[in-house]
């Protein structure tokens, strides 16, 4: 077997290739070093992030445990004794009142919640928001943000390491092409050299680009200010919270969470335009969350920008049509925009979806999400707020666009909203108690409620005298109010339920089933309040009383307790 002798030209080519291979080997080694460096940085950042996540969770759990003790043991004990003081005083037992007062003082040292700066002796209340903020909210938020920041750094270094791995692979291809070129003759071998060298050039350029790309950084100053802002916003110290978020954004202008939280704080301050501006900026900074989109849609609604609101809501509904709260908001927005048919469709879809979710959960012996009831209740409250605004009767808690923003026939919108409120309330009640939508059936007709005081009863306890207060307005310190009503039509066969809404929100402690035999009389009474104790009175405010018979809302009435 004779080996073919190589020409001088071929020998020169072989030598050139040897040098090129050795040079690419150096480049491979450099790339491998950079890959190792980036990979190490990525792993270290991820490890730090994991440790911070664990610490953040622990801090929150630990803080919640501490608060649970302070609130539901120390404060609760102190509060119970305080009620015993009041009860003893009301009964004229000064000795007992004195004893309980002394005992109360013995409980005070057991928790910081009962001392300054958390306890306010004037209102006899503890500032739980400040306490929670101080013992864990700010710190757990800070740790959670550090976790996010280190994770982002880890991801960036990880991406860089992956890019270097690809470059090493490409350089290996180059080495292979160079090696093959020495086995070839003629111009083809130069093609291998040129392609291989081209890959080297691409790799070197790519390496430079990877280096020049900006890496996320962990700005502790921004994170500390952000966490402080979250704590202040939690305490409803909105101006101070805005200042803290501004400080965070001065340290890190593209801090999406800080932009969003500032926007949410503006929304709480009813500065809707500023809120919208921040929500959009947060989205541009990379925050693509459901809650951000949700609040953006809500801010648009409050600002009367209904088309924008519908568009923002659709982003959520397009990705998940089963979000009931969002569907209700969409119905509300369409209604405010004067699109009654669109609103009806959205509300119908929402109620059907709620029925579906309840059925699905109960079929497998589970319960639907607690938020379902919250959103069902919130939907009727939002409609009521819109009605109050349109009727020129906004309350302190009303959250609805200015009446001037609402387009379409206001009377029709109000009528639609009032009907829809009844549908929603009945659907919520039946779904909660039976898992079904309300049955179509005839129910008794109830006269408008009369509010007043039962002044006399007979030996059997039947009411013989009732003193009606015609304007349904009661003085401060009223312990309870009696409701008088009469009815016609069929007696209830399934259920009678009372609900009471205090200042727009249901006070579930008043919710109760009622089981008198209504066939005995056509006029009945129900007491709302605390006539069974000498400790509590009705707080000043608006009370809306609702009566449901066989899951149908048959009557609603309102009474007021004055501040002074």
């Amino acid at each position: 077997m004779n080996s073919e002798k190589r020409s001088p030209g071929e020998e020169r080519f072989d030598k050139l290739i040897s040098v090129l291979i050795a040079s690419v080997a150096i480049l491979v080694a450099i790339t491998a070093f950079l890959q190792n460096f980036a990979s190490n940085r990525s792993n270290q950042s991820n490890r730090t992030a994991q440790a911070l996540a664990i610490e953040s969770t622990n801090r929150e759990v630990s803080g919640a445990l501490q608060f649970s003790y302070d609130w539901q043991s120390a404060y609760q004990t102190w509060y119970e004794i305080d009620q015993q003081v009041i009860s003893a005083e009301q009964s004229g037992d000064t000795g007992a009142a004195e004893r309980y007062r002394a005992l109360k003082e013995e409980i005070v040292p057991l928790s910081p919640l009962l001392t300054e700066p958390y306890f306010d002796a004037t209102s006899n209340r503890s500032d739980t928001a400040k306490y929670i903020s101080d013992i864990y909210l700010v710190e757990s938020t800070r740790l959670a943000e550090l976790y996010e920041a280190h994770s982002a750094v880890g991801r960036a270094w990880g991406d860089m390491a992956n890019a270097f791995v690809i470059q090493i692979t490409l350089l290996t291809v180059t080495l292979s092409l160079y090696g093959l070129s020495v086995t070839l003759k003629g111009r083809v071998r130069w093609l291998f050299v040129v392609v291989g060298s081209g890959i080297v050039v691409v790799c070197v350029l790519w390496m430079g680009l990877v280096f020049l790309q900006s890496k996320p950084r962990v700005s502790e100053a921004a994170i500390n200010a952000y966490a402080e802002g979250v704590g202040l916003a939690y305490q409803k110290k909105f101006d101070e919270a805005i200042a803290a978020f501004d400080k965070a954004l001065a340290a890190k202008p593209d801090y999406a969470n800080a932009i969003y939280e500032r926007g949410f704080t503006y929304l709480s301050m009813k500065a809707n335009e500023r809120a919208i501006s921040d929500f959009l900026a947060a989205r541009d900074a990379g925050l693509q969350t459901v809650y951000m989109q949700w609040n953006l849609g809500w801010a648009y609604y409050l600002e009367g920008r209904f088309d924008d609101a519908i568009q923002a809501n659709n982003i959520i509904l397009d990705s998940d049509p089963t979000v009931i709260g969002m569907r209700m908001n969409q119905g509300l927005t369409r209604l405010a925009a004067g699109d009654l048919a669109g609103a009806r469709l959205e509300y119908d879809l929402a109620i059907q979806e709620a029925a579906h979710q309840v059925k699905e959960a109960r079929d497998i012996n589970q319960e639907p999400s607690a938020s379902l009831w919250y959103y069902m209740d919130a939907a009727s409250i939002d409609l009521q707020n819109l009605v109050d605004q349109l009727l020129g009767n906004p309350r302190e808690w009303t959250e609805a666009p200015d009446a001037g923003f609402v387009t379409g026939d206001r009377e029709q919108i109000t009528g639609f909203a009032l009907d829809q409120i009844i549908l929603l309330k009945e659907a919520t009640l039946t779904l909660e108690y039976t898992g079904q939508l309300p049955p179509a059936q005839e129910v008794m007709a109830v006269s408008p409620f009369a509010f007043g005081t039962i002044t006399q009863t007979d030996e059997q306890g039947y009411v013989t005298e009732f003193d009606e207060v015609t304007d349904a307005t009661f003085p401060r310190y009223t312990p309870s109010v009696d409701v008088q009503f009469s009815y016609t039509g069929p007696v209830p066969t399934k259920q009678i339920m009372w609900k009471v809404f205090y200042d727009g929100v249901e006070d579930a402690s008043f919710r109760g089933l009622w089981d008198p035999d209504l066939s005995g009389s056509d006029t009945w009474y129900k007491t709302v309040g605390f006539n069974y104790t000498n400790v509590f009175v009705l707080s000043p405010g608006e009370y809306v009383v609702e009566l449901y018979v066989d899951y149908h809302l048959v009557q609603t009435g309102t009474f007021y307790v004055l501040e002074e």
Partner: protein
Amino acid sequence: MQQKHDHFKSNMAILVALVTILGAMAACRATVASSNASDADFEGVSAAIKAQKAEIVNEISAYEHNRAYTSYVRYLGLGSLLYDEGAKSDPASFESQWKELWGLADTMKIYFFRPRYVNLENGLYDIQRELDEERADDAQFNDLNPQPHFDRSDSLRWRSAILTADLIVFAIAFWLLTLAQIIENRLKYFLAALGVLTALAGTLTALLAGVWS
């Protein structure tokens, strides 16, 4: 002369092969170090999880004890106030009540909190002392400190970085020896010497990386 020339080329070829093997060994050790660093990270995170789990369990228990202590203070205080009240007027008037209340206070003390942690000077339940003692107890039987693992991981990653950087040194040695092999003039001896020295430096670094870490 031709024979001497071939001999030099053969030696260079052997050296190039040797440098390649040394480079491969450095790469192998770097990979092992990197893998061990990841294992140490995992052990560290595992220790951190165990520590937090122990802490939460201890806190639940300690706050339950503190709740019982609060009831104890209430029963004891009210019993004492009734006792004092009775002592002032008719000692038998509240006797059944303060006896019942003191009995309840003792129930709390005997069954539901640890009296050892009651600070006798200020009358408060020293929850921090209970937590610290429980933590010390747990640490005797479990690995709850992630830091030594994280320190070891950092050290291994440093070794891995040094060994990977060493690949560049071996690649330079490889380049010099390749050049020495193909050059026909006296410069080839200089390049060969430089290549050998570079390879030795790389070997020394690889050995030291193991010792330092």
